[in-house]
């Protein structure tokens, strides 16, 4: 019985924890529906606004946010596609091919992801200025550099999980290396591919520092940068900032909810007897 009680207590603790985590987001959402006059002062602590309004959203969409969302979407999609493809091939090589220095390569790949971003911003900015790449979608390149190591690492783990016999069987069946990769390995590592893609997409979507530095022109602002520009000379438009936060969060939310189903860990069950 003690176990049941402990279980319930534990469950309650988790719910409480989740509430604490999600509270800021909920509050941002509630604030975004309050007129400017209610955001500050006595009305600030009210849960629901006396006069709920969509004026912040309207103001937002009259501004630059749609363009920024478009930029974010394009850059995130390019980066995700590129990273997933390159990571899949690289990870397959690391997972399956026999060559000298395999472990070292994986270690170096992982190590590159450990550099604090702030230390690489400077050199990358210099490079972009020289190449005349600032204010463009080329920002996908440094993004992929940041996202690749993690994606490769995730995929190596997933490729290693695919039994070797599966490939040998395909080999005897007459499949080429590439065919084996596309027809056998990739489908089996699909949960890993999705995980890598989602992590990449979200990390790019949420990235701020490089986006601010490399694409200072407002026509190339990404959503995260655009939010910080929601201010006048003497004030920050908190209503619009909160509305923008909500808008920017929605795509990632949708993606996670949509693709969550694809991450089925049980996909390989039944393939081999464990």
């Amino acid at each position, binding site marked *: 019985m003690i176990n049941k009680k402990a279980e319930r207590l534990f469950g309650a603790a988790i719910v409480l924890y989740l509430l604490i985590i999600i509270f800021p987001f909920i509050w941002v959402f509630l604030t975004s529906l309050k007129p400017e006059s209610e955001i500050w002062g006595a009305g600030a602590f009210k849960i629901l606004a006396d006069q709920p309004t969509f004026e912040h959203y309207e103001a937002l969409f009259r501004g630059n946010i749609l363009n920024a969302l478009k930029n974010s979407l394009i850059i995130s999609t390019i980066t995700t596609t590129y990273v997933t493809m390159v990571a899949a091939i690289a990870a397959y090589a690391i997972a399956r091919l026999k060559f000298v220095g395999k472990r070292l390569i994986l270690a170096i790949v992982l190590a590159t992801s450990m550099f604090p971003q702030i230390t690489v911003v400077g050199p990358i900015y210099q490079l972009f200025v020289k190449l005349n790449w600032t204010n463009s979608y080329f920002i996908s390149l440094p993004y992929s550099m940041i996202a690749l190591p993690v994606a490769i690492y995730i995929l190596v783990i997933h490729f290693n999980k695919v039994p070797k016999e599966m490939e040998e069987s*395909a080999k005897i069946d*007459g499949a080429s290396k590439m065919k084996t990769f596309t027809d056998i390995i990739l489908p089996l590592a699909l949960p890993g591919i999705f995980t890598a893609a989602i992590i990449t997409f979200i990390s790019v979507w949420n990235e701020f520092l490089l986006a601010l530095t490399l694409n200072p022109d407002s026509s190339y602002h990404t959503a995260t940068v655009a939010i910080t520009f929601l201010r006048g000379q003497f004030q920050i438009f908190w209503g619009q900032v909160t509305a923008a936060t909500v808008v920017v969060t929605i795509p990632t939310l949708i993606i996670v909810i949509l693709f969550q189903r694809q991450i089925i860990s049980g996909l390989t069950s*039944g393939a081999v007897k464990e």
Partner: protein
Amino acid sequence: MAKVILKGIKKIYPGNVYAVKDFNMEIEDKEFIVLVGPSGCGKTTTLRMVAGLEEISEGELYIGDRLVNDVSAKDRDIAMVFQNYALYPHMSVYDNMAFGLQLRKMPKNLIDQKVKEAAKILEIEHLLDRKPKALSGGQRQRVALGRAIVREPKVFLMDEPLSNLDAKLRVQMRTEITKLHKKLESTFIYVTHDQVEAMTMGSRIVIMKDGDIQQIDTPQNVYENPENLFVAEFIGSPQINILHGTVVKNHDKIELQLDDDTPINITEEMQKILEQRGYLGKKVYVGIRPEHLHERDIQPLHHDFSTIYGKIEVAELMGAEKYFHMMISGKQIIARVDSKSVKKAGDDIELNYHWNKVYLFDFETEKRII
């Protein structure tokens, strides 16, 4: 339908590790060859070299009349069944079986025909739309077999295909694979560590140890005429009883004296051989199979036999027979007797054996003395 010839096949791993040392064998068309041995004996490596999954370090491999050392797996005209089935989990049973044919650009209607034929042979027609995870172990094994059958290869390679099945299913699939071999009339090479599978399925057995072939022969010959101690001990269940004996001369008769002075008698022919080869005074291994120890009261022998005495430590009723475990001359001995025996643990027992059922092995080389 093809011969397989292995000429001086070796597998050498980096660091001069010999996984397979000089494997020589001619496998006739339509033979059912079983490679058997304890784990690490090189049997699977040999099979994988035939399959083309493992490079051949030295030697020549012919399938049919073709030297295939440098021919890739897909072009060797072989099919392989893996221990863990290795079915493609994201494909239906049908697609699993059709995959190899699709890769060979076979017309769709022909693929369909072949898959259905194979499914019929294996009685899995009703499972064609299912995914592997919705199948039982036995069904998965059938699909794996089906995937091999549709290709109509010259040689079937099987790597412990039954070891993941439960005991009952294993026996059933064993006979089915044997039937399949008869029906398909092609060459089978089958790897197992289970000597029962080897004995029951193989037309010839290859017994391996540490990368060396110990003996190649028919199951019966391997059982009755093991060439060395290892083969004698590996084949047969329960294992052959092995005792240590010294060759002594006792009143013109040569016999074997066990460590506790129990005499073991042998045929006159054997006595001559021992004397001629100078074994007098030397130690030898004495082997008697459990079923050649007969309980005097139940199954009396009439000529050319002797008796040893033991005290039963454990009696196991197996149904049709009983196993008596005893200590004789400091060694664990098993006698396999008729279940009519009323003896039980703690009883003294008299066991008869025919002189010609005593196997002798050289103490140094472990080769059989004949």
